[in-house]
């Protein structure tokens, strides 16, 4: 056991695109470590690939519990302890049933059918950005709007409401720019809009996810409304930040961008490698042990809260040869960016496609793309749950 006070978590990045030094130290010396969450609560941090995978994929353990460690005392910590998580099935067979109603909309076939529309949205955003001229913030003009447009499309929300969705989503999850009051108001406005939207879809069903869930029957309006909130919260900031980080990583070493321009068939493996190599993955995923579990030879009693660092696990030398090198051709690439097991990201086929389309369109439209600032000056977001860069200034 540790003699000193457990270190604060999450750890700091020594440079904008470099992982915390603690990741490698803990994987080598202390694969199950006590750390202190921003709330002040202690938790057990797991950093090796095999251990993270073991804990995340064990169907016995829920993501949270009444006496589990709290992430933070802020409203964002609160969102995951909110009406949404009380309304949507969180665990076991009921969760699997609900998840399978949703997963119909995220099959590879469905997402492939959606791909031309995503591409058209990406092209339009690039039209607008280039019309304004260089330099531009690729995050604000491209990475941030693209996923919210896609979610609006899936939920059958008209194009004219996209800006409102974008604002609500940003405010609900932002820790740095908005007050708790602003976050509360945004969540209230969003839920009121979604209630009206669900009622409208009941009256006039369309070809969208909500209409389909309504016609399938059996779901209450509350579940439908919070399913919409869940998809927005899970699918917007995560993808937006990942597009920004991916492009920053690729431009930070111009040879990477040149390789992709020369051979765009590398896009799918480059996207997986960017997901693996992400040095700002956010907090990680939690599990609450409802019974004793042995992890890396250490017995953890029932009642322990475990934090799984997918970012640390994704650089585990035991799984990835030359783990600290970004290899755009790496295959297979069984990274844990989308988690593992029964709670792994339901929208991962969509997220992959959005990342691939974003990269393909940028390579096609702006092959001369480059960072407008030195990589060392890219600023991280102070968010807790979703990690990313504040801006990605670019020239072309």
């Amino acid at each position, binding site marked *: 056991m540790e003699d000193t006070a457990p270190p604060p978590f999450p750890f700091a990045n020594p440079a904008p695109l470099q992982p915390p030094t603690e990741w490698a130290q803990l994987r080598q010396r202390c694969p199950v470590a006590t750390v202190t969450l921003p709330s002040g609560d202690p938790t057990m941090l797991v950093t090796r690939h095999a251990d993270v995978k073991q804990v995340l*994929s064990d169907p016995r353990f829920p993501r949270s519990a009444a006496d589990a460690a709290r992430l933070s005392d802020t409203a964002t910590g609160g969102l995951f302890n909110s009406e949404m998580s009380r309304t949507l099935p969180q665990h076991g067979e009921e969760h699997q049933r609900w*998840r*399978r*109603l949703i*997963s*119909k909309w*995220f*099959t*590879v*076939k469905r*997402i492939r059918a959606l791909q031309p529309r995503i591409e058209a949205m990406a092209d339009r955003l690039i039209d607008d950005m280039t019309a304004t001229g260089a330099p531009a913030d690729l995050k604000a003009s491209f990475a941030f709007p693209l996923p919210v447009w896609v979610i609006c499309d899936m939920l059958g929300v008209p194009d004219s409401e996209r800006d409102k969705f974008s604002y609500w989503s940003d405010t609900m999850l932002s820790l740095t720019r908005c007050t708790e009051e602003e976050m509360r108001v945004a969540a209230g406005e969003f839920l009121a809009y979604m209630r009206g939207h669900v009622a409208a879809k009941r009256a006039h069903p369309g070809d969208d996810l909500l209409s389909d869930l309504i016609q399938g029957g059996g779901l209450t309006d509350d579940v439908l409304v919070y399913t919409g909130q869940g998809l927005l919260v899970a699918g917007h900031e995560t993808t937006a930040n990942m597009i920004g980080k991916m492009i920053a990583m690729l431009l930070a070493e111009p040879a990477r961008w040149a390789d992709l321009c020369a051979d765009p068939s590398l896009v*799918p493996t480059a996207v997986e490698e960017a997901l693996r190599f992400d040095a700002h993955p956010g907090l990680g995923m939690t599990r609450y042990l409802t019974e004793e579990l042995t992890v890396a030879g250490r017995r953890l009693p029932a009642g322990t809260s475990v934090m799984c660092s997918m970012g640390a696990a994704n650089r585990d030398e035991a799984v990835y040869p030359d783990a600290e090198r970004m290899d755009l051709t790496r*295959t*297979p*690439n*069984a990274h844990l960016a*989308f*988690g*593992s*097991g*029964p709670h*792994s*990201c*339901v929208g*991962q*086929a969509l997220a*992959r496609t959005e990342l691939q389309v974003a990269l393909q369109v940028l390579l096609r439209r702006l092959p001369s793309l480059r960072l407008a600032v030195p990589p060392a000056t890219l600023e991280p977001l102070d968010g807790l749950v979703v990690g990313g860069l504040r801006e990605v200034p670019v020239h072309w």
Partner: protein
Amino acid sequence: MKVFVDQDKCVAAGSCVTAAEDVFDQREEDGVVVLLNPNPPAALANAVREAAAVCPAMAIELHE
């Protein structure tokens, strides 16, 4: 090579379809894996191994 899938464990990520679409498909109603070919030819062996390696539910088992 013989392929087994566990539809109960499957989380409908679709990674297997992306890796080897001649061997794996997804049910239209919920995205759960459908095994198209339990005895894939040697030419597809690498793609099937990749599918098993990247499955986030560890729902694909290979006997070689």
